[in-house]
């Protein structure tokens, strides 16, 4: 008797086994989900040392200060800065503190409709400049270190070009500066005029719609497979806690002020003015060649939001002689939160800054 092409008995047996496993898993998951879970994010203690409108300046003090120059971190306007302190063992902030760096971080807060007129210039030459001056004054230093994340990185590039005398060293991470690429879907979609009209209609760019847009970058993985994976592992408490912490962070997203969004889309995504040193802020041209301080530029090889082509052009246009590009084999968020890159990312920045600590 020849072997059947489809072994129905074996398939039925596998289905029965899978069903039994799923039943056990759901029972265990039920116990875990109703038990007390550690879902808190951003647990590292800090003080709010300065406040301007809704924008706060957080200060993280290390046990022992090993660096003369403090570091100011500027996060993007999309999502929250809590991503840099997601949980113990996956905290960029904690790693910096362990190395003895005094860390300041801007919390942009939650813009409301009244913030719709706030421009990029207000962010760069307003909030960032005020906070840089506050830190310089507090530490009695002429220059501080600056680190930017994604859109916050682009703001740091603009700031360093306009105020090079206030920055000792610049760290850019997953920072889009060249928008003339069709590698990332955002670079394709943001060229459409509808996005600006949408933000205008709502007053600001609504965070929920931005998040929907991010999910639509890869619907099978982000809207289906991710939750299938959760179902398969929901009987493991550490997995559930990590997963929900990440969900909390992803969907905790502020709206983007309309005028800032409009200018970022038109000047950067549509006209690519930043990398061409043609962008104007507060009547001044942002000339990248004015960036003369040491610069290290990190980006992700598999970043689908800021692909390498969007990030790796910066160092070619700055005036610095001490400059370095670092491409890590990960994605946009993995660079900060994956357990693998906890040893490669923040410690490397700490080491780089140490060598340039005035």
């Amino acid at each position, binding site marked *: 008797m020849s*072997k059947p092409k*489809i072994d129905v008995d074996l398939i039925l047996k596998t289905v029965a086994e899978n069903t039994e496993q799923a039943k056990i898993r759901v029972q265990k998951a039920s116990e875990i989900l109703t038990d007390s879970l550690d879902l808190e994010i951003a647990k590292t203690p800090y003080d709010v040392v300065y406040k301007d409108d809704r924008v706060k300046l957080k200060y993280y003090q290390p046990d022992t200060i090993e660096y003369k120059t403090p570091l100011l971190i500027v996060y993007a306007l999309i999502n929250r800065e809590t991503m840099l302190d997601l949980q113990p063992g996956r905290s960029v902030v904690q790693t910096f503190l362990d190395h003895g760096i005094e860390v300041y971080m801007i919390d942009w807060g939650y813009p409301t409709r009244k913030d719709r007129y706030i421009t990029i210039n207000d962010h760069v030459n307003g909030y960032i400049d005020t906070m840089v001056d506050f830190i310089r004054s507090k530490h009695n230093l002429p220059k501080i270190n600056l680190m930017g994340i994604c859109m916050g990185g682009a703001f740091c590039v603009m700031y360093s070009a306009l105020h090079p005398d206030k920055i000792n060293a610049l760290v850019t991470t997953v920072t889009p500066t060249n928008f003339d690429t069709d590698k990332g879907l955002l670079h394709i979609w943001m060229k*459409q*005029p509808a996005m600006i*009209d*949408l933000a*205008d209609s709502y007053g600001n760019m609504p965070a929920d719609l931005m998040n929907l847009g991010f999910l639509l*970058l*890869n619907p099978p993985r982000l809207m289906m497979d991710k939750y299938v994976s959760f179902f398969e592992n929901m009987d493991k408490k550490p997995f559930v806690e990590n997963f929900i912490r990440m969900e909390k962070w992803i969907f905790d997203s502020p709206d983007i002020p309309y005028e800032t969004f409009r200018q970022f889309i038109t000047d950067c995504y549509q006209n690519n003015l930043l990398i061409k040193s043609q962008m104007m802020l507060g009547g001044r041209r942002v000339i990248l060649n004015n960036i003369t301080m040491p610069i290290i530029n990190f980006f992700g090889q598999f970043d689908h939001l800021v692909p390498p082509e969007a990030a790796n052009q910066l160092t070619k246009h700055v005036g610095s002689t001490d400059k370095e590009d670092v491409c890590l084999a990960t994605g946009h968020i993995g660079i900060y939160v994956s357990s693998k890159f906890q040893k490669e990312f923040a410690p490397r920045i700490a080491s780089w800054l140490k060598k340039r600590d005035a």
Partner: protein
Amino acid sequence: MSQSDQDNTKNFNEWLQSSMQFWKNFSAGYTHGDQKQSEKETFFTGSQKTDQFFISGFNMFQLLMASLLEPDNIDQTMKKSDAISSASIEIFKQFTESFMDMQKQWIERCVRIGMETKAYRFDDIDKEMFTSWKNIYEKEYQKFFQIPAIGLLRYYQERANIALDKFNLFNESLAELLYFLYIPFEKSAQVYQKEIEKQIEQGDISNNFKDHYNRWMKILEGHFMSLLKSSEYSEVLNNAIQSYVQFKNAKDAVLMDLLQHLPVPSQKEMDELYKEIYELKQTVKFLKTKLS
């Protein structure tokens, strides 16, 4: 006049007369009951206003009925009612024909789904269904929402009509976007079905469901990546967002009309205020920097 027409006329006449008698009795009882009350009142009260409005309306009704009861007018009335019913049938016919036409195209599309488009390709998607739908809407229905409004409330009516029109256009764009998002599932199913057929032929089909899921997911992701990068999708996405923005703006305008009767500031007023505050803050910051 045929026997049937004569019967209709007779029935209509009887109905009018009985209606007249009913309203006459009702009116007499209603006004009689309130007479003493109204005599006592020296002012023109709300109750008297209602009475007068009712009496006036009843008189109009009586006149209209009496006019209809004239032998010549009964014929005309019957003819007009025929005309109304003919018009209704004509409108219904037009609606049905449009609907059938649209449905026919849908059915034709459904039959062709999966037969014409190639795997991992999105430049050959037939958008005829949505174009036809849009054309039918614009040709047959949109004009009703564009009828010029008249009278005191014309602007309110106009804004309500625009909101309804934009809502319909948004639904059309949304349907097209959802259709685009559905296509990768259809294509992935086809591709994977062929793979399974091959595996069965070779006798090496996996018994593990997870293997099938992973493979299908990979194929689906590949199709989605091809779709999302295509200019066709960008165009459809942009249209959907644009039509949503237009609908939202039109809906907001109607809501603003309603809100203006409530003691709350409108969004437009608040935006003006926010802008003034923003500009004042800028001035204060500038002067502060200048002074320090």
